[in-house]
């Protein structure tokens, strides 16, 4: 019998709420009609469920606990994550609660040796980073899940076994009232770094683990510094190691430091030892203020990924699929991109609107992304936690040189998680037409936002679950071939949301589902799009084909490819 903790966790800033276990129909001989079961109601599992629901696909979401995340864990959401949350229709509470930021400073021996302002375009709605505790991330997603009639979130439900054949997957689910079998067409493993599904299926990750251990401690303190990334290399009190400081909502500060080699986690988390180090950090910040500890844990850095995220009818996503270094905020932010990539494909396959091959592209694209992140994150990790004497000597040399020289400072760049480009995706087509554009947004890239006015951005208009066809029309509205293509889009095998962008909003008439007025041509310029041009955009906002001059026949071909069909 699975008996999850029924008392709310304790926290000095967050009121945990117990979500009661509800007896599911399976315990009384009934059966769920959901084609998809998602294991793990963390941020990625919930986003995937919400996205599936937008496509009209039901899911059962299994969570072994009765409450949200223990501790603040993932605290930085990138701009791309916020755009994904906006697309899923759930960004508002994140924007209201989170602290947005764009810069960081690094110190060595009391001197500022590096500062960076992350790129921010006036066309972007969100700043590069937004700090928010994982409890709030999960709470807001739980609220969104509760609003959907298509998601059955089952708290206190732990998977203990998994079997599958060509037709279905069967999960054994243990609960406070006994266990039952749950049958699904597809299972999404979103059950985190210690994934039960990954272990039950005996799947091995590839890559490397780094030796150093780091402490994360959240304290409540009146520090009064702005929201930015602060990094201190080798402070006197922690020779050879480094410290990171991030501000969170509710007066909470994240302190993150590497432990001396050989020191155990238990030893590091002893209150008096941890307290002494927190005092040192506050001294270093020049803010020796009173503080209270909320939560602390120990982690180490990994660059590990499963080689394939699709195993029969089981799909892996987020930390269940890969363990990535914390440097560059790559955990939840990579996971959100996984979920966004997976959900539309799984929805179309589950509904029978696309061949199973579409799911292969999920694994292909996201394993490739994880490998790039392992490579990139590995560089940051080798700087932040040098794995050998050679890397430590190089790091020390760069820090020492950076006190008087500029040239090595880019090595202190922390390489933040970015939106991935699926330039080599099998879902892309019309490469020559893509290459014919002079700029704009290339095949495989995520769409780029455009500011249209005060609190008004292009992405605010691009709602709806489906492919997007962005058609660029002149002052007279879409003419000729573009008009034919827009008309043909209605009969496509999947939903294509027709977006007409042009100087005259009212000239677009009944050919468009969404009309975006572009009186100054800002959107057309950002997309390098002449009149008659068009972009075909996947439901996860990545461009899969574009033409300077679209015809209906080309649109049909590109859609076939984008659904995992034959190449054009």
């Amino acid at each position: 019998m699975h008996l999850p903790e029924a008392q709310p966790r304790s926290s000095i800033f967050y009121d945990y709420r117990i979500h009661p276990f509800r007896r599911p129909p399976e315990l009384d001989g009934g059966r769920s009609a959901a084609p998809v079961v998602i294991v793990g109601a963390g941020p990625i599992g919930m986003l995937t469920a919400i996205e599936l629901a937008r496509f009209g696909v039901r899911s059962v979401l299994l969570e072994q606990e009765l409450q949200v995340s223990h501790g603040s864990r993932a605290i930085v959401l990138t701009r791309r994550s916020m755009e994904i949350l906006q697309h899923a229709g759930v960004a508002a509470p994140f924007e209201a609660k989170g602290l947005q930021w764009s810069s960081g400073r690094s110190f060595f021996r009391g001197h500022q040796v590096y500062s960076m302002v992350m790129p921010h375009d006036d066309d972007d709605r969100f700043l590069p980073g937004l700090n928010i505790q994982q409890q709030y991330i999960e709470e807001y997603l739980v609220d969104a899940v509760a609003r959907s009639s298509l998601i059955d979130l089952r708290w206190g439900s732990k998977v203990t076994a998994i079997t599958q054949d060509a037709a279905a997957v069967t999960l054994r689910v243990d609960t406070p009232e006994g266990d039952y079998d749950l049958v699904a067409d597809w299972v999404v493993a979103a059950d985190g770094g210690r994934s039960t599904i990954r272990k039950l299926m005996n799947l091995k990750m590839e890559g490397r683990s780094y030796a150093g251990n780091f402490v994360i401690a959240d304290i409540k303190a009146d520090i009064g510094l702005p929201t930015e990334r602060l990094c201190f290399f080798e402070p006197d009190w922690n020779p050879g190691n480094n410290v990171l400081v991030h501000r969170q909502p509710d007066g909470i500060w994240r302190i993150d430091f590497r432990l001396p080699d050989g020191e155990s986690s238990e030893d590091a988390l002893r209150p008096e030892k941890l307290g002494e180090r927190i005092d040192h950090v506050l001294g270093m910040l020049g803010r020796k203020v009173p503080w209270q500890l909320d939560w602390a844990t120990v982690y180490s850095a990994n660059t590990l990924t499963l080689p394939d995220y699709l195993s029969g009818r089981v799909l892996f996503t987020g930390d269940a699929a890969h363990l990535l270094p914390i440097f560059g905020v790559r955990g939840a932010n990579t996971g959100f991109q996984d979920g966004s990539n997976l959900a539309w494909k799984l929805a179309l396959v589950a509904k029978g609107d696309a061949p199973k091959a579409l799911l292969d592209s999920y694994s292909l694209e996201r394993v490739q992304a994880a490998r790039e992140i392992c490579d990139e994150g590995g560089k940051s990790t080798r700087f932040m936690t040098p794995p050998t004497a050679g890397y430590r000597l190089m790091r020390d040399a760069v820090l020492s040189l950076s006190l008087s020289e500029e040239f090595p400072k880019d090595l202190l760049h922390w390489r933040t998680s970015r939106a991935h480009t699926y330039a080599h995706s099998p879902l892309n087509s019309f490469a020559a037409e893509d290459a014919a554009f002079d700029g704009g947004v290339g095949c495989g890239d995520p769409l780029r936002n455009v500011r249209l006015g005060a609190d008004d951005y292009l992405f605010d208009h691009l709602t709806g679950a489906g492919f997007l066809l962005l058609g660029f029309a002149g002052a007279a509205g879409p003419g000729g071939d573009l008009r034919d293509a827009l008309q043909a889009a209605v009969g496509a095998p999947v939903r294509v949301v027709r977006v007409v962008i042009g100087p005259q909003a009212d000239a677009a008439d009944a050919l468009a589902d969404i009309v975006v007025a572009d009186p100054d041509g800002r959107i057309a310029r950002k997309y390098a799009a002449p009149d008659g041009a068009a972009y075909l955009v996947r439901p996860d906002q990545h461009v899969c084909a574009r033409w300077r001059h679209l015809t209906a026949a080309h649109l049909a071909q590109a859609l076939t490819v984008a659904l995992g069909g034959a190449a054009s």
Partner: protein
Amino acid sequence: MMPKILSTAELEQVYDLFAETIDATPEGMRPLMLTKLALALANLVGDPAKIQAAVAAAARDL
């Protein structure tokens, strides 16, 4: 202040190459290997004034 000549990507490659070469050299031989490296690079730079500036930067803030 020395000019930045290598691109960041090139500097990253150099960083990894040096780190791995240090690791591949027996511990007692590392100063010798690094000194040979400095001499070889000085020869390639071929400008005594630049070499002097590099030596000064290297000797600072140890």
